């Protein structure tokens, strides 16, 4: 009986969010396969605990937090994996069109700048990278993210400050006289 199949209800709950989850996961991880694995792992957990999703009126903030936490956990574990892991250039899929279409010199320069920026972004700590993705890339406010991620606003401000500072240093925008690390006060 199709009506009693838990998959029917599960798919009705998650399908509307899958493409959106993939895009967010791709921006977190920088790789198609990693993004797919991350969403897959989230679904495995959700399927084992279907009541988690069913009780939510607006699942996206909850899914954002779940995907974010899963990403941060997995990335930290990956950094300590016994086998190690080598990656191709991150976010490579985003530049397929630019590489294949014989773009003018200016467009290629722009693609080069983007590659540099994304390569630097990929070197940030996972929670810093995720915050830059959600705030600077997707335009979500820090207040919204504090609520979504269930984190203090001051923590996010501090993370964003450190993320931008590291990005700037990786991209060569440092201060030749040296800089002082400043921690934004908790709010």
């Amino acid at each position, binding site marked *: 009986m199709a009506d009693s199949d838990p998959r029917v209800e599960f798919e009705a709950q998650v399908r509307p969010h899958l493409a959106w989850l993939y895009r967010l996961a791709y921006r977190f991880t920088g790789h198609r396969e990693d993004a797919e694995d991350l969403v897959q792992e989230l679904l495995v957990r959700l399927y084992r605990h279907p009541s988690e999703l069913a009780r939510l009126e607006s699942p996206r903030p909850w899914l954002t937090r779940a995907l974010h936490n899963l990403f941060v956990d997995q990335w930290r574990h990956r950094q300590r994996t016994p086998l190690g892991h080598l990656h191709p250039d991150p*976010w490579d899929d*985003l530049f397929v069109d630019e590489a294949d279409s014989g773009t003018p010199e200016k467009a290629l320069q722009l693609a080069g700048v983007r590659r540099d920026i994304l390569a630097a972004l990929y070197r940030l700590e996972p929670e810093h990278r995720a915050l830059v993705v959600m705030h600077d890339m997707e335009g979500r406010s820090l207040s919204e993210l504090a609520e979504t991620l269930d984190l203090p606003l001051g923590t996010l401000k501090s993370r964003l400050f450190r993320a931008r500072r590291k990005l700037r240093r990786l991209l060569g*925008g440092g201060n030749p006289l040296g800089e002082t690390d400043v921690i934004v006060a908790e709010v």
Partner: protein
Amino acid sequence: MNCDELLTYLDASAPAPAPQAALDHLSGCPSCRKAWRLAQETAASLKALPEPVVPAAFEERVLASAYRAAGRRRPIRVRGWGLALAATFLMGIGVGVLLEVTHAGHRGGYILQDGTVMLAAGDTTTVNIALDAARPIQDVSFVVDVPAGMELAGHPGEPQVTWQGELRQGRNLLGLQLVAKAGAAGVLQTEIHHDGLDKVFQVHVVAAEESLWDDLRRMLS
């Protein structure tokens, strides 16, 4: 505003419009102008990135994987040295899964005849699981479940450790550094997922108390 203050403001506020004090500093400081321009370029580039394209059949793949994982059958058990598992070829991981034990402490570890791994409580013992891959395999997921009373070095208090990896052609050693409390015993389970296929290896592990270890070593050697 000096250089340090300007860069602090920049990292905390970009890409907000610059206050007059910042503009005054920027007009006379080429290095900070470069940093300011770079921050603006970075912010603009991040906002202008193309939207990732969802791969074909993505939804069906991830849903199928979720169902498969939820309905996973009883795992296959591996015991002792050099035991071949017929199903491993399905993943492109050749037969010849074997277990070795090395140790950082002076007491070491043993593999009993029934395949149980005996560890010295308190030492860090590396259980090496050798995976022979017939070809390079990308995007392999590893999930290690650690018995109660034991943990993987570097993962304190985590009963399950997961990560993504890849297997080189030939032998790959999965080095699991176990730290066990005295008397702890259970199943060390390693799940390997690749391309929709799952593989589960189980090894019984027992941690002997320090006072018993010398007797055990005499008995087992």
